[in-house]
């Protein structure tokens, strides 16, 4: 697992500082492959948030 994916996950969790966030968002606009990876990771995050035990209690 590279630093890049770690940053992508942190971005999707809104846990990146402003500078890192801006830098990564710029890269996501330019890099199609990176954007696909981000979207794939976001889908997994969506699965977690849809899990009832994770949202209902």
């Amino acid at each position, binding site marked *: 697992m590279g630093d890049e*994916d770690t940053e992508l*996950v942190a971005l999707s969790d809104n*846990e990146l500082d402003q500078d890192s966030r801006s830098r990564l968002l710029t890269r996501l606009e330019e890099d199609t492959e990176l954007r696909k990876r981000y979207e794939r*990771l976001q*889908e*997994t995050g969506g*699965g977690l948030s*849809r*899990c009832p*035990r994770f949202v209902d209690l």
Partner: protein
Amino acid sequence: MRRGLERCLTRLWRYALLLSKAPDVAEDLVQATCVRAIERADQYTPGTRLDRWLFAILKSIWLNEQRARRVRGRETSIDPENALINGAKELETNIRAAEVLTAIGRLPEPQRETVLLVYGEGYSYAEAANLLGIPIGTVMSRLATARSALARLLE
């Protein structure tokens, strides 16, 4: 203390379930946590987060149990039916949730508990790091690895 404990019971049980992957073990863990918290109530600092203190106690008991279990060699597995108590009423959502929980159950324990604390309990990365006694970078890498594994498992 007792009222605070009661409010945290469900969350403690959920944490215990995802650590132990077995409802009966989770119940024992929660019970042991409550007993220890009451016994050591004088060690709790009023005004601080009771949930974090209780989670730390539960984790400590679990680690001790793990050490003992290595000798006994017991294996367990998550039962999604139990994990979904109080869950969503929509069948489709429940099926998906069971899949997600099953996949989470396949993650190694360090990833599993980090996923629970951040996505299940809503702790920030910094809070989870503090609770687990690990650097925030480790939380980040555990979550990234877990999310990648979950994406594969849920395909």
